[in-house]
Structure formats: structure tokens, C-alpha cells
């Protein structure tokens, strides 16, 4: 199909991509039930819904990776090509999937031209690198084509994926949660790039759990809930609350708006005290204190060293110099159990990678740091474990069959609640949390932040390490890290713009 034909199609008001009555089951799970979507040519269309609503499934069907059980897919009014004809699909739709499709062991150039390195005959490696360099330059991506893809940053990989997606000549691009792993500056650059492309007539389908992004870059939005299509509206016709209501099926305000909190008295004891901490290559000379009952935010761009700092406090890394004092004691550096014993609760960055043991039950995951307290002499009394876990499930409102369900069966938001429950399991005096709401839908986000506030209200000192402004709204103060140093300490009352420019390292007047 030529681009002229495509344009002819759009002129007639035919959607660039359309799914009609699509259904998909995985075993007993209905991932999509007669759902549909129509993306108009030239628009940026948002697809939102809670974790497990079926968004990624719809994406895999729209890109020809999965065969729907029922329904049909059309591009520019014409039926979709056969599933086996991948090249035909890729000329119609390009996709940056939720899971990276970069092959880390191959070079950037080869990733860009995977499975089309040459026509027939030998591959001309030099020519391939040149073509790759041209392609990357064409989209303004500054990456060495000869580098191994595994050595790229998340943002660079994503850019490579976008460049590759576009290089097939497709004018319709799907981005499945592209912002989930990017910091604020990188997100801005991504949006600039999207707007640029949109101005050249490219159509986008954009998936995100960050609703403000939907308002920022999208013109229309489709909501999926319980595998069904709920609504499709222009974004300006839908308030944030209405959007959330459509996603959750409940009315009422769902978002944490930075709950008003009483100020922390200066007499409150310091529960977390970091002095002169240094880790070569990550951060240097970091001092910070958190008092009991205080909620402190820590923000910074991807290379600011904030996550490494949090990991050092938790004992996952060992600092080159400096001290960490937790509730008055100095745990042995580089030892997680010592930090836990000193009264630290820790919520790691990525629940899939460091948070959960997928095959183990909710109860086991949630009680892991306190396993020693569930019975005498290292025995885990099953009844006590179940009881503890059931209490946690109630406290944090975890939707699960019961404490014995493997966490791999939980949706993203509920899995994250298990990680939070685990971090709070030992009634920590100090709590360090990294990206506590990453990839979690709005509804779950609200209840997670509520639980954090309650922990602070209960007397714990909390350090929230996050790029998400929503996570930081109820903090008493927010520290900003830049290139390994804490450069700002912003009390409550900051504006989004202030904070973002501080993160960028822009000096405030």
C-alpha cells in the first residue's frame, strides 16, 4: 500500500487503524471482550485503563503479534494482512512495546535492521552501519550505531526502537507505556519528538498510567475497563475525575491531592541521618535527615544518583565514605539485614526485578523481612504467617484470593501493594521508597500513597525517592539531586515548574 492510497483513505474519514469487536481469552481469563478502538489519521490517541484492563493485549492484536479470538482489524479501511506476513504489518503499524524488543547482544545498527540486514547474499556491515547512522541522524538520535544495544540507557533504547519503528514507513505508531521508565526531562524530549512527528502526519496510539500526560499530548482518549471498551472522547471533553471514574467504574475523587498534614515538630527525633555519604561514580558528599513523622521527597534526573543513594541506605550498596544512622544506630554498611534490624523499611525500585519472588505466595512475599519473628528458632508457623498476611491484605486493601495466592497472579497495582506491605512489615522507624507508584494505575496509586501517609502519621520517617510529582505532593519537603549532589531543599508549596527546573539543574533566581 502506498502512502498516497493511505492519504486517500484518510481523506474519506476512514480511521488509520481500527479494531472492531475484538475478543481475546487466555485460558479462563478474558483479556478483551468485544472491545474496539478507532484511531483517526493524524491524531494522538490515548488508551487508558487500570492494570490488566487489556491495553497491552489490544496492542499485540493491533500489531499482528496475537490472533484475536474474534473481531477484525482494519488499516485505512482495508483488512489487516495475514499474521505470517510480518513485513506487511510493519509497513502499516509500528510499535514500541511495553517490553523492550531490543536485542542487547547485537549492535544498534543490527537492531535497527534486524531481519532485513541485506536483500539476498552477504551482509555489507559497513554499509549497514552507514545506513543506521543516517537513519538515527534523520530522527536526531545521538547513538553510535556500532555500540552494543545492551550498553544503551533506557531512553536511548527507546529512541532506537522508535527510529526502527518509523523506518518501515509506517505512519501509525503505538507507544505502550513509553514514559514508565523515563525521567521527567526524557519524557519532555519524547513529547517534543512526538509533536514533531505528528506535525508531519504521523498517527499515535499512546498508553500511559500518567493521566496528565494524556492531557498533555493526546487529542482523544479511549478507556478500557474489565476487558471492555467504555468510552472514546476528545480529551478536553473529559475532566480528570470523569476519566478516572470511567477507568475505575466508581465516581468520586480518587486522586491524592497532597493531603494537608500537620507540620512535624522540630523536636521529633531524627530517624534517618545521612552524613557525607560518597559512592564514586554515583554521588558525593550527601547529607540528609528525616525526622519521625516526616515525609521527605527526593527527586532527580536519571543520572542524579538518587536511586543509588536509596540503595546505599538500604544496605544494597556500600558507600566509599560517610555514615548512615538509622534510628540512632549505625548498621553495618552494605548489609541489608543490618539495616532492617536497625529499623529500616525499604521498597525497591522495580517490583519485578527486586520486589517480588513471583512463584511464592502473597503471604511469603509480604512477611519475608519478618520471617524470623513468625515462630521460635527460625520456624515459620504457618498459622501466624497466614494471620499476619491476612492483616496486611486488609490494611492495604490488596485484591487477592488469599494469602496463599502466588504474587505472579496479581495485577501490577496489587503486586506493588504487597511490596509496600513488605516494606512496612517490621514497623520501620525509617522508610525508604523508590518509585512507589511506578506503572500503577491511578486508583491503586491513590491507595498506595494513602498507606504511605498513614505510615508517616504513625511516626515513621519516610523518604520517597521518585520522579513522579504526584508521589511528592504530600511531602513536607523535597530534596533535589543533581549530578550526585543534593542541590535544593524545597519546602511544601513548590510549584511543578519550580521543581522541574530544579531537577534540570536550572538555577532559580
Amino acid at each position, binding site marked *: 500500500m502506498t502512502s498516497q492510497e493511505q492519504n486517500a483513505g484518510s481523506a474519506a474519514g476512514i480511521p488509520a487503524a481500527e479494531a472492531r469487536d475484538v475478543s481475546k481469552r487466555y485460558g479462563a481469563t478474558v483479556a478483551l471482550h468485544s472491545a474496539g478502538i478507532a484511531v483517526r489519521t493524524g491524531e494522538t490517541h490515548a488508551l487508558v485503563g487500570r492494570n490488566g484492563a487489556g491495553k497491552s493485549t489490544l496492542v499485540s492484536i493491533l500489531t499482528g503479534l496475537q490472533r484475536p479470538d474474534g473481531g477484525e482489524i482494519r488499516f485505512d479501511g482495508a483488512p489487516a494482512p495475514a499474521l505470517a506476513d510480518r513485513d506487511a504489518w510493519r509497513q502499516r503499524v509500528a510499535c514500541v512495546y511495553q517490553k523492550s524488543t531490543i536485542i542487547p547482544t547485537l549492535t544498534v545498527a543490527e537492531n535497527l535492521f534486524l531481519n532485513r540486514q541485506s536483500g539476498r547474499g552477504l551482509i555489507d556491515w559497513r554499509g549497514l552501519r552507514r545506513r543506521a547512522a543516517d537513519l538515527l541522524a534523520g530522527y536526531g538520535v545521538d547513538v553510535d550505531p556500532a555500540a552494543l544495544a545492551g550498553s544503551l540507557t533506557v531512553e536511548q533504547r527507546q529512541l532506537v526502537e522508535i527510529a526502527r519503528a518509523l523506518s518501515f514507513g509506517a505512519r501509525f505508531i503505538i507507544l505502550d507505556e513509553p514514559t514508565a521508565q523515563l525521567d521527567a526531562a526524557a519524557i519532555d524530549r519524547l513529547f517534543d519528538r512526538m509533536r514533531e512527528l505528528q506535525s508531519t502526519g504521523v498517527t499515535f496510539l499512546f498508553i500511559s498510567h500518567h493521566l496528565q500526560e494524556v492531557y498533555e499530548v493526546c487529542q482523544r482518549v479511549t478507556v478500557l475497563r474489565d476487558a471492555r471498551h467504555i468510552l472514546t472522547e476528545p480529551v478536553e471533553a473529559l475532566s480528570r475525575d470523569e476519566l478516572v471514574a470511567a477507568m475505575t467504574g466508581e465516581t468520586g475523587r480518587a486522586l491524592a491531592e497532597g493531603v494537608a498534614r500537620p507540620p512535624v515538630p522540630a523536636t521529633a527525633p531524627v530517624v534517618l541521618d545521612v552524613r557525607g555519604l560518597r559512592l564514586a561514580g554515583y554521588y558525593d558528599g550527601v547529607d540528609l535527615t528525616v525526622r519521625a513523622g516526616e515525609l521527605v521527597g527526593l527527586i532527580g534526573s536519571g543520572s542524579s544518583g538518587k536511586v543509588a543513594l536509596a540503595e546505599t541506605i538500604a544496605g544494597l550498596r556500600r558507600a566509599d565514605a560517610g555514615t548512615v544512622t538509622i534510628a540512632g544506630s549505625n548498621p553495618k554498611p552494605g548489609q541489608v539485614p543490618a539495616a532492617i534490624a536497625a529499623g529500616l523499611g525499604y521498597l525497591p525500585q522495580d517490583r519485578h526485578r527486586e520486589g*517480588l519472588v513471583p512463584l511464592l505466595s502473597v503471604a511469603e512475599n509480604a512477611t519475608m523481612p519478618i520471617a524470623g519473628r513468625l515462630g521460635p528458632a*527460625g520456624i515459620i508457623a504457618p498459622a501466624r504467617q497466614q494471620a499476619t498476611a491476612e492483616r496486611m491484605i486488609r490494611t492495604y486493601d490488596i485484591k487477592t484470593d488469599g494469602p496463599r495466592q502466588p504474587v505472579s497472579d496479581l495485577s501490577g497495582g496489587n503486586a506493588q501493594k504487597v511490596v509496600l506491605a513488605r516494606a512496612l512489615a517490621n514497623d520501620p522507624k525509617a522508610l525508604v521508597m523508590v518509585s512507589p507508584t511506578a506503572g500503577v494505575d491511578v486508583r491503586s496509586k491513590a491507595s498506595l500513597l494513602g498507606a504511605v501517609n498513614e505510615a508517616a502519621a504513625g511516626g515513621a520517617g519516610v523518604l520517597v525517592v521518585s520522579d513522579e510529582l504526584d508521589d511528592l505532593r504530600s511531602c513536607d519537603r523535597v530534596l533535589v539531586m543533581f549530578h550526585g549532589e543534593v542541590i535544593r531543599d524545597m519546602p511544601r508549596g513548590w510549584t511543578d515548574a519550580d521543581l522541574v527546573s530544579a531537577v534540570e539543574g536550572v538555577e532559580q533566581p
Partner: protein
Amino acid sequence: MAKPPTSGGTRPGGGRLPLARLRDFALVPAILLLVVVGALIDPVFLSSANITNVLQQQTELALLVLAEAIILIAGKFDLSLESTIGLAPALAVALVIPAASNGLGTELPAGLAIVLCLLTGLAIGAFNGLLILRFKLSAFIVTLGMLIVLRGLQIGITGGQNLFDIPPSVLYLGSAVWLGVPASIWISGTLFVVGIVALGYFRHGRSVYAIGGNTDAARAAGIRTDRVVWVVLMIGGLLAALAGLLMTGRLGSVAAAQGDGMIFTVFAAAVIGGISLDGGKGTLFGALCGVIVLGLINNILTLAGVSAQWIQAIYGAIILVALILARLTSGKAQD
């Protein structure tokens, strides 16, 4: 929430546990079937003498499978067990017997032999752990190398000879009978019970599952992952050395090739018993069932007098089918 979390579609809403438990018992019907087949083939099969024999012959394999199962659950690999089972008793015996009987000439007190044997196993496990954890080498590669080195060491130390002049203390465990049942059965049985309880109900045991399931998460939750894995590897070496003691006692000598080629059977038994090579999955009870299944098949083929020419192919085919069934019934049919 999008829908009740019944993904997979195989399990009823609330009854998560019963099915998981059921999976542990997946081999029980197979064992019952084999017992019936055995009884039909030869009534002798059900005699207590024969049953005792089957169990006793499997004790050493059982201990190796116990060791390998724990190591696999922790997400690691140990191929060198099959050499430890020979080297550990060989070294211990060579250290205590006189040079005239192919000893090393040190002639340490014979009473020390058992301790020396177990220490050797422990040391091998510790050395594997050193290479895997400190030097961050792949467990497969390290233990593949050790498999070759340890066998070579045994041949070097013994000059390739079988050791006959075994001190009675070393022979005792593998040949004694307690309450009418061979001691080796008591020992292996007890160790399996200990293992099942430890891995099921103790903090450190559960941490083995956590490490195998997701090492980073286990570390972030305050489990000393390296230490636990190291201990697991050392226990593995210790169990292999104990298996070597039992085998030495049962056969009355240390063969130069003791344990040679056994590792394939060990993996087959563990996998048939539901242990996953990816770590974090399977139970020791399942592994024990795997051992028993292989033992029964062996015994039945012998009793049935299957021709020597085809016995290996038939045995192999049964193992292959069992492996396939184990994989298919263990839920996800994925690599």
C-alpha cells in the same frame, strides 16, 4: 480490578493451595501404577525383602537428588556431585589405610575416616561456592570443570585402583541394619524429612526458595543470599560425601569410577520429581518420588528379565516419557 485474578484458568478461585499440594503428589499415582505392574510381573516384587532392596539401592541416588534438588531450588547447578561421591570416601580411606593397601601413607586414625570424608565433601562444596559466588562464574561451568578435576584427583590419589581395605567404621553406615531395615534407608529417609521440614517451615529454608525465585528481591528483603547459596552448596557436597560413604559401605570398596555417569540420573530424577531447572520451584517430596519411580522401573525391568540388549533403550524411553509427562503436568508447559 479488571477481573478476578484467575489467570491460567486451571485453578478454582479460592482453592489455590490444594492444587499446589496436589502437584506435589503428582507422582503418587505413577508409583501406585508401578507397584501394581511390578506385582503382576512377579509376586516377589511385593516381598519386604525386595522392597527393602529397591529402597536401599536408591539411597545413594536419593541423597544426591536431595542435594541437587536443594541446589536447583536455590537457582544453581552442581554437576560435580557425581565425582564427590567417589572422591570424598576415596580420599578419606586413602588417608587412613596403610600405603601397602594403596593408601597415601599418612595412616591417620581410622576413626577419623568418616569425618574426613564429610569434610572433603564440605570443602568441595565450599570451593564451588567460592568460584561461583566470589568470582561470579556460572555454576554450570564451574561444576563441569570440577566434575573432571575431582574424578582426575581420585584416580591420581588411588592410582586408579579400587580401594578394598576399608576401615570398618567407614563400612558401618552403608551396611548396618537398624530395627530390621538397612541403616542407609533410615539415614536417607530421615534426611529427606529434615529437608522437607527445613525447606517448608524454616526461615532459612524458605529463603532458598526466595533466592531461586528472584535473587534480587530476596537480597532486598534482607536475605543474605550469597551466604545461603554458599551453605546450600556446602550441604550439597556434604550430602554427596555421605552418599559416597553409604555406597562404599554397601559395596565394600571404593571403585575408581564410583558415581561415574550418575549425574544424568540425578537430574532425571529431580526433574521427573517436579524440580525446575530455573530455580525456586519444586519440593523435596516430589524429588523423592522421582527417585522412587526410577528405582521401581529399574527393579521391574530386572525382575521382568528384559533382554540386556534392549534394557537401556527401554529404560531411557521410560525416563524420556516420564520427563515429558512431568513437564506437561507441572502446569506451565514453558521453558
